[in-house]
């Protein structure tokens, strides 16, 4: 199986769904961590053990009659650094798996909504993703895979500590549920810090989408549970559900207030961002993320029409270094990436803004003054 088809589009088909939450929630992800008894964890295991684990897991997945879905298998060591980076940018594998030199592989469903990582931090990590806010659906999918595999694999499990994991922060259920949310107005009005503090007290964590240290970039946050032991799966999902719903409600209220009080200023900000995206020649990732966030807000508030949310989701993923270099077809130094990023975003948004009289023009050349 070739990896290329999975690298072609920034957002897979499953992302192109719009529902009542699409104005705020981008996607939902469920991850289950599992290990096999009788083998050391990937932190210390031998290459031989790694191979045995990989064979056991891949056979269990590919030979399972209970799994209706077929999976493509890729060994990480066979992928180029750029291919690995794109998979990380698409959230199909973790940065940790991408760094594996010898061991580590992934199994990917055709629509990319399910990716199973082998020999990452744990022997097995089942990850299921859905568009928008669908915790139950994503969990049911992950649970189905887990149930199908538990008969074929000797899971490391104890009555008291549950599913045993390399790191004690995943012990118990091994369940991590994350909801990716776009919260521009709560960030703008300075309420995010307060919310993050409250969530930490509730046993939840908040991270940015572009990895460590990118908490604020593009105003996109990942809310996930930190507690995995001492609660049932249903409790964990219910907690995340109610917290995410409260945040959605707060963001909507804040958006409403801002529209009432400062519609013109907001509209100005949003159109300036659109102007930058459709006209700039150099765009750093920070500026691009901020502008995309503002334009997305404009689309959600119906201040801009003609641009699809799906296009913006695609741009959010595409503007990252791996994708840019894939798009350019060559390795690029950072300064070149800023130029290519500007070009790529102009092209992506050009078609959709073409029909609008405020922008006009016949092609990219007409922007040049």
């Amino acid at each position: 199986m070739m990896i290329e088809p999975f690298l072609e589009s920034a957002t897979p088909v499953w992302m192109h769904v719009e529902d009542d939450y699409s104005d705020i929630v981008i996607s939902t992800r469920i991850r289950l961590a599992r290990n096999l008894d009788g083998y050391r964890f990937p932190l210390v295991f031998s290459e031989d053990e790694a191979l045995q684990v990989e064979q056991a897991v891949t056979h269990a997945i590919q030979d399972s009659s209970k799994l209706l879905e077929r999976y493509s298998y890729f060994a990480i060591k066979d992928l180029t650094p750029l291919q690995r980076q794109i998979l990380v940018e698409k959230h199909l594998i973790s940065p940790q798996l991408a760094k594996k030199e010898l061991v580590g592989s992934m199994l990917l469903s055709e629509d990319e909504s399910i990716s199973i990582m082998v020999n990452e931090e744990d022997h097995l990590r089942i990850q299921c993703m859905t568009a928008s806010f669908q915790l139950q659906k994503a969990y049911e999918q992950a649970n189905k895979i887990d149930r199908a595999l538990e008969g074929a694999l000797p899971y490391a499990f104890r009555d008291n500590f549950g599913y045993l994991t390399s790191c004690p922060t995943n012990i118990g259920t091994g369940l991590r549920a994350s909801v990716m949310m776009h919260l521009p107005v709560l960030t703008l009005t300075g309420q995010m810090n307060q919310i993050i503090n409250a969530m930490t007290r509730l046993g939840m964590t908040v991270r940015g989408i572009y990895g460590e240290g990118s908490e604020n970039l593009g105003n996109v946050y990942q809310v996930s549970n930190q507690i995995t032991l001492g609660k049932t799966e249903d409790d964990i999902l219910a907690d995340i559900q109610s917290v995410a719903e409260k945040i959605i409600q707060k963001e909507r209220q804040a958006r409403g207030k801002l529209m009432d009080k400062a519609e013109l200023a907001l509209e100005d900000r949003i159109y300036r961002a659109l102007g930058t995206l459709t006209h700039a020649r150099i765009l750093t990732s920070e500026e691009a993320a901020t502008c995309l966030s503002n334009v997305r807000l404009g689309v959600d508030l119906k201040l801009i029409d003609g641009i699809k949310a799906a296009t913006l989701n695609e741009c959010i993923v595409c503007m990252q270094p791996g994708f840019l270099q894939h798009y350019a077809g060559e390795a690029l130094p950072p300064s070149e990436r800023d130029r290519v990023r500007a070009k790529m975003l102009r092209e992506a948004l050009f078609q959709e803004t073409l029909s609008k009289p405020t922008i006009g023009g016949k092609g990219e050349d007409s922007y040049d003054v």
Partner: protein
Amino acid sequence: MICEHCKQRNATVTVTQVQNSQKMEHHYCDVCASQFHPFHAEFKQEPVSIQQLLSNWFGSPTWQQKVGEKQQAPPQQQTCTYCGFTYKRFLKEGKFGCPSCYDTFAEHLPKLFNRIQAGPQHIGKMPGAHSNVYVVKKQIEDIRKRMKDAVDEEQFEEAAKLRDEAKELENQLQFEGGDVS
């Protein structure tokens, strides 16, 4: 024989020394022998290993200290027999080496889990096979409770019936490979 050192008490210890291929024997009483040769006291504790003898000979019974430490070993000293991880290494790495580490360090973990998790006990989903064993274990626990009540109320016929029921479930559990303890 009289002790050749104090020349008062009876000689009870014979010390053989080999020097320049010449074998010499000395005869001492208990008191004088213990002054010259601190290992003396250990001869009574059979069997004595050569390491014990040597360490005593040099006046530092380190093996004794080690045994003492091990008896009240902090978790750092324990080692997982499967992967060789110590609790100290776990604290350093923040991760365990293998599933058996959870058994090795089991007694220290509830405290840790109380701090970083919602509690020390898993109450979520279990793999299918475990789930069956768990259900049977719970049934046995329940029957044993009822059995005790029956004995307290002097309903011995009922208690005997319950005992047989529990035994049957225990056999079933052993057959499935579950630990009945």
